[in-house]
């Protein structure tokens, strides 16, 4: 006989152990890649992991699509950038102020927008992303327009200035790991279950007392806050930002990371972000053919691993190594 109470606390211990192991692995990475070009790429893996988790909370858990998430990322970057350059605000103050402003904006936008479902929601968020993109380009007195915003200050703690790849790695991944733990906790909680319930059957969730409308807006705002935070960190590590980083293409790339990694899996978001950030670097040698390899890989992934890497790899392992039927779930 299964004992759900016992198995519950076992699962909690296993999850914690997995997270500690993952964090240790991440923190050891600079030992191996210090001084190499990859160090810089790994900083981007961290930022993209944060963004993919943010989108996954919305898409993978609550089942609500957004094609405009690059806009929230950009908004965080520009708010932080403008506050710290034009108004000389301390970056540590600018980041939370930007995050709260973006979260508040998303909360207000969320009420009308999240009334829409599926294709209509996709169209509305697509439009939203484009509006943000145009705003970054056109309000050049503030943003510098297409030529970008430069001389954004690095973050500093006491005498340490975060201006090298290794320091930035620890900064970005420190925050990413916190976001990850935050998302993992949320996913396995009362609120996380309510989100998945809304995803599977909104009407049944409502009948059980879940305020689906408010919950969707809350998670949309939380998702935007994480994007804004990632955007601010991006601005302060790059010290230069321009609108092209925050356009429609990047929204689609984020969506691809989430789907390839695995919908509804936080570690999947890391795998998707890592693959899509590293792939262009690996394929650099292939010159112009990289786009073909890239596209082909996407098609193969979606056809043969519809559950994403996080479910596809264990399935392959079982199929070819252990020959054991599937039990339980991750």
């Amino acid at each position: 006989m299964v004992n759900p109470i016992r198995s519950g606390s076992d699962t909690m211990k296993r999850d914690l152990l997995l997270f500690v192991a993952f964090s240790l692995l991440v923190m050891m990475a600079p030992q191996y890649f210090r001084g190499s070009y990859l160090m810089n790429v790994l900083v981007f893996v961290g930022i993209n992991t944060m963004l993919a988790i943010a989108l996954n909370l919305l898409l993978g858990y609550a089942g609500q699509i957004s094609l405009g998430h690059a806009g929230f990322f950009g908004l965080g970057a520009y708010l932080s950038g403008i506050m710290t350059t034009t108004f000389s605000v301390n970056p540590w103050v600018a980041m939370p102020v930007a995050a709260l402003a973006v979260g508040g904006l998303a909360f207000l936008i969320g009420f009308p927008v999240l009334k829409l479902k599926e294709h209509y929601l996709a169209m509305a968020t697509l439009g939203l992303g484009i509006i943000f993109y145009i705003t970054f380009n056109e309000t050049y007195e503030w943003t510098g327009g297409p030529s970008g915003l430069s001389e954004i200050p690095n973050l500093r703690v006491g005498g340490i200035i975060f201006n090298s790849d290794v320091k930035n790695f620890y900064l970005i991944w420190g925050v990413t790991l916190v976001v990850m733990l935050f998302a993992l906790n949320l996913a396995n909680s009362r609120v996380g279950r309510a989100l998945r319930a809304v995803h599977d059957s909104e009407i049944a969730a409502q009948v059980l007392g879940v305020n689906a409308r408010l919950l969707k807006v809350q998670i949309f705002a939380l998702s935007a806050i994480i994007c804004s935070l990632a955007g601010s960190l991006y601005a302060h590590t790059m010290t230069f930002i321009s609108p092209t980083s925050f356009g429609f293409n990047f929204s689609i790339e984020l969506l691809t990371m989430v789907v390839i990694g695995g919908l509804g899996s936080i570690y999947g978001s890391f795998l998707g972000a890592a693959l899509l950030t590293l792939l262009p670097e690996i394929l650099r040698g292939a010159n112009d053919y990289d786009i073909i390899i890239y596209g082909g890989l996407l098609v193969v992934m979606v056809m043969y691993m519809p559950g994403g890497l996080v479910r596809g790899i264990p399935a392959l392992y079982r199929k070819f190594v252990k020959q054991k039927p599937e039990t339980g779930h991750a």
Partner: protein
Amino acid sequence: MLEVSGITQIFGGVTALDTVSFSIAKGDITGVIGPNGAGKTTLFNIISGIYRQTAGTVLLEGINVTGFPPERLARLAMVRTFQNIELFGGMTVLENVMVGMHTKSSSGLLACALKMPWSVSEERRIREGAAKWLEFTGILDLSDHTADSLPFGKGRLLEIARALAALPRIILMDEPAAGLNSQETLALAQLIKRIRDLGITVVLVEHDMELVMDICDRIVVLNLGRKLAEGTPREIQESPEVIAAYLGDDD
């Protein structure tokens, strides 16, 4: 317990329900029956806040709940199940029932994400409560299975367990025996009686006459959107109007 009066529902030009009124006593099992198209499911959708009726009021324990959304009714301890079971397919059996305890728990988004001590202890309480209702419905051994993988009969039991986890004072069941075999239907009858014995008022829409006559304390008969009769199973069986309505449409 529950009082509906003058419920009228007009879809386009069609009158689905026409001034239907009845009241349901606390602790009873009440059956709502009627030929296909009588308006039974429409009535359920109105009572449970899914449809907004054209006219009429619904009183729940003396409170006028007309037009309340379903999530508000859940907080007033009224839940329902669906004819085509609505499970959270991607979640485990245990997790499904844990969602049932949503109104009996309160940790918010931040408390959950930060794993505050009270949300951790609440999580344990939710888990224990959910296990209790799985045991009550006899599907505790399926806890770790995903809801999608359950056979229909077990899915039905899961949906009932999930509704009970909300600790309702009244539960509406839309055709709970639909799709069940005769053995499962017998077990369902016992389960519904045990639910009533917990002091929970049960209202069910049902086509299985044997089940209805066996377990119901009172029966409301609808036909073509109007209330045709109301009474004990014996009174209903002997009612000439009911017999006339069912002639040639014997389910």
